[in-house]
């Protein structure tokens, strides 16, 4: 049924199910408008942080309400958008990631804060994009989400216009990102040509072995792999991550990955043929290997974390392959949400700490510049160590249980050799995480090097604390996070 009357959209939204499903997105959209309004009216400017936090909290409230419902709305608005417990859980992740990245961005720009309102509004629209991607029931809705996420990120990456690397990152990301958007559109067009529909559930039922639809699916997958930063579409990551302002990198590393993965697992999985599972598993393993090998060679902390992000994307891709090989949808979904949640808190915390250190006068992003950090700033070093250990998957941290769930799912999908290979490749990762730990704890500060001072607002410290507590909590009390997923 196609609605011809443009105003009928309001009728559609007033249905209780549709209203509940879209409430978080609408709240965010209103928040974006409010932020822009505050920017124009001088009197309202001091209110901006409250508007931002308030909007996110309201959206979080709606997501939690969805999580608490016994029967979630499911597909709404002619099946173009899906709201389930899973999408709500993903939504919570997106919102927490955005909030944390924002907290780190406060006071990050040393040269005063031009365009603060625009910056915040762009960050909020990223969250809208992610939610649309995770819940898309239709390729067009997904595309709108993808662009709503990507375009603000292009702008945010280049936000420090006075730094050439930031501009370079923005342009690089923009060029390659639009290329991948084009791939997606072309794939969607081919699928439409082949099957006459853009609805994902209809496509899943109709996808056949015809060349047209096969190429279409492959192109869609390629553009998703680009967003997840999987081999062979990963080469943009180090430059873009390194050049962007660090809080934006945190959002990019966690949010984009999470959103693309959420779409792959919640909605798009039925599109992919089972016999592609092995290919995806291979790509995932290559991604892990390349990420880890690349990270081993890095001297810059941000770049190292970027490569480590590639390796983590590979691990997540293993889940996609397990799902394609027939692993239980629900188990895969939970493993993905848990892993991504743990990664989100860990990586945001790690990037956040980098942002904290680098804006202290000089740029502390070289690994060497962290020498003796344990003595000058024991708490920052302690938190960083915790994050690095979690990234490496050492028990008692969320990173360990996340890995556990992923490999358990892969083993259950009867891909034991893949699991063993993945596990062995992740040993490699410890070598470079530990290197940073060694530098911070076991080497004396370099002679005459400037000592990082604490000049940042309380919010960054608070965000680090929250991340650290959540990393430990996901590792020690996972039931707290898993039980909302098994209502």
């Amino acid at each position, binding site marked *: 049924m196609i609605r011809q009357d443009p105003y009928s959209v309001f009728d559609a939204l007033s249905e209780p199910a549709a209203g509940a499903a879209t409430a978080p997105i609408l709240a965010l959209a209103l928040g974006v408008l409010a932020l822009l309004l505050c920017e124009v009216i001088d009197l309202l400017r001091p209110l901006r942080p409250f508007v931002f936090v308030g909007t996110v909290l309201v959206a979080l409230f709606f997501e939690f309400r969805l999580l608490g419902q016994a029967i979630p709305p499911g597909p709404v608005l002619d099946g173009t958008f899906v709201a389930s417990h899973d999408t709500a859980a993903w939504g919570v992740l997106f919102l927490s990631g955005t909030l944390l990245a924002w907290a780190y961005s406060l006071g990050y720009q040393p040269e005063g804060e031009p365009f603060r309102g625009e910056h915040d509004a762009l960050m909020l629209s990223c969250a809208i994009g992610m939610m649309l991607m995770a819940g898309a029931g239709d390729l067009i809705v997904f595309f709108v989400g993808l662009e709503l996420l990507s375009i603000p990120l292009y702008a945010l990456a280049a936000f420090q216009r006075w730094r050439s690397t930031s501009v370079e990152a923005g342009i690089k990301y923009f060029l390659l990102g639009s290329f991948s958007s084009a791939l997606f559109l072309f794939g969607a067009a081919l699928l439409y040509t082949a099957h006459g529909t853009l609805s994902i559930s209809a496509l899943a039922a109709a996808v056949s072995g015809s060349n047209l639809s096969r190429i279409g699916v492959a192109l869609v997958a390629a553009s998703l792999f680009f967003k997840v930063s999987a081999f062979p579409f990963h080469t943009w990551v180090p430059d873009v991550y390194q050049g962007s302002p660090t809080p934006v990198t945190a959002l990019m590393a966690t949010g984009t990955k999470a959103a693309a993965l959420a779409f792959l697992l919640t909605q798009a999985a039925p599109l992919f043929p089972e016999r592609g599972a092995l290919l995806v598993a291979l790509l995932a393993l290559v991604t892990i290997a390349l990420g880890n090998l690349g990270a081993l060679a890095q001297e810059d902390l941000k770049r190292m974390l970027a490569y480590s992000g590639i390796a983590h994307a590979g691990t997540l891709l293993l889940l996609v392959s397990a799902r394609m090989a027939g*692993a*239980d949808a*629900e*188990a895969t979904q*939970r493993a993905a949400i848990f892993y991504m949640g743990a990664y989100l808190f860990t990586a945001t915390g790690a990037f956040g700490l980098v942002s904290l250190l680098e804006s202290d006068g000089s740029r502390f992003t070289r690994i060497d510049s962290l020498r003796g950090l*344990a*003595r000058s700033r024991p708490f920052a070093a302690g938190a960083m160590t915790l994050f690095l*250990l979690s990234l490496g998957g*050492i*028990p*008692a941290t969320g990173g*360990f249980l996340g890995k*556990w769930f992923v*490999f*358990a*799912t892969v*083993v*259950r999908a009867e891909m*034991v050799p893949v*699991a*063993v290979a993945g*596990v*062995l490749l*992740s*040993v490699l990762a*410890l*070598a470079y995480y*530990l290197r940073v730990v*060694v530098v911070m*704890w*076991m080497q004396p500060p370099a002679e005459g090097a400037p000592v990082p001072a604490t000049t940042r607002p309380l919010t960054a410290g608070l965000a680090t604390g929250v991340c650290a507590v959540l990393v430990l909590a996901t590792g020690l*009390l*996972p*039931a707290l996070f*898993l039980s909302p997923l*098994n209502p």
Partner: protein
Amino acid sequence: MLLLWITILPLLGALALVPLSPRRTSLLRGVAVATTLAVAVLSLVLWTRFDGTRADAQALFSVPWFTLFAQGGAPVPLHFALGVDGISILLVLLTTFLMPIVVVSSVGHVTERVKEFLIWLLLMETGMLGVFAALDLVLFYVFFEASLVPLYFIVGIWGGERRLYATIKFFLFMVAGSLVMLVGVIALIYGLGSASLPVLIERGAELSLEHQRWIFLAFALAFAVKVPIVPFHTWLADAHTEAPTSGSVLLAGVLLKMGTYGLLRFCIQPFPEIALGYGPVFLALGALGIVYGALLAMAQTDLKRLIACSSVSHLGFVVLGLFAMTSSSLRGAVLQMVNHGISTGLLFLLVGMLYERRHTRLLDRFGGLAAVMPVFALFFVFTVLSSAGLPGLNGFVGEYLILSGTFQSAPFWAAVAVTGVVLGAIYLLTSTRRVLFGPVILEENKQLADLGKREVGTLLPLVALALWIGVQPNPFLAKTAASLDRIADRVERTRAALDLGALEPASSDPLVSAKE
């Protein structure tokens, strides 16, 4: 509840240290000593309450932790479950006993960043106790891995000159081993539909032989690296040599025991049939370790490296005793775990004291110390004799039980192992002669101070324990008897069944036919 308190009290102690000022070192040390002593006292209470006639786990504590979602089948609940049986209680006691000594001994060699050091030590105690007390596979794995981290920092920050190389090597060896075990743990949990250790022990043998074999191998590899069994021993000498004295004592005293404990608990006890099949391999590796470790020790010029190599030899005995799988060899193996903790701990403490005075550990830098440091010499000779297995001291009881038990099931490897006893006496006595006796050649050695009260105080409890076990081992053996007899009985029954089965050609399992 008692066991829970024993396990988490060190963690609470570590948290209590966090807000204290790093400059008030005596207060920090006082808190750490008090915590470890309290844990030791609690564990003694546990020991007296422990009923040695029961084979199953006691002092149980269990709360639900989280649920693993199993695909298809029922979800697997995980528990924060603790408990000790006759095997683990000895190791728990060994740990809680060594800890106060380690904390006190650290006064001599840790003068920088004392607060961090004590925090790591206490965290490590919780990790080690958790490994021995965990009754849930995932919980065990978490403790097993997490106990690595404190040691990593202890060696890496307070270690010797090549500490960075040693720590990275140590950590990567350990993590590679335990990640393979992780796959084994996952496969085991989904095979059994439960993560509980008692269930594993009960029903492990019901899994298909192929399944059992892979899980056995995954676990055995991780533990073999930890023990270490030759050829995985190369990390040990480096880590031991570079670690500060307290790190070495804990590494040798407790950490290596996680490997032998794991072999017994996760390889032999649940899968006796596979263990019998691979028994000859491990017997050969154990005997090889005894001889090779002793030969390595003979070739060392650094006293600490020498002790590290002797550990390889001594743990070879434990592995031999475990895989001979007779009732007396198992008793000997478990007792020898404790003995090795005591005598090697003593040796490391003594060498540490020497190093604090002379800042070298090279054998040819000493000589004639008996004349200068008579008290030190007394302790040194005692310890060496205990380590060499002199009758009347602890080492003898363990080695004798192991060898006599092994002669019943694998006489050839027992014979090879006996040569190790002789070699052990050679390298231990030679090095004693070179350090203690003869003329005092070097000027620097003439002015060395003898042991102080604190140092004697750290040594005496261990010396007393060594004597006690040597003269009257029964109180210790009695507590473990029931648990070990259950394993030995089960192995016997399996052995008998396999022998019967081997007579029938119908048996198609390659392991069984290989056994003939």
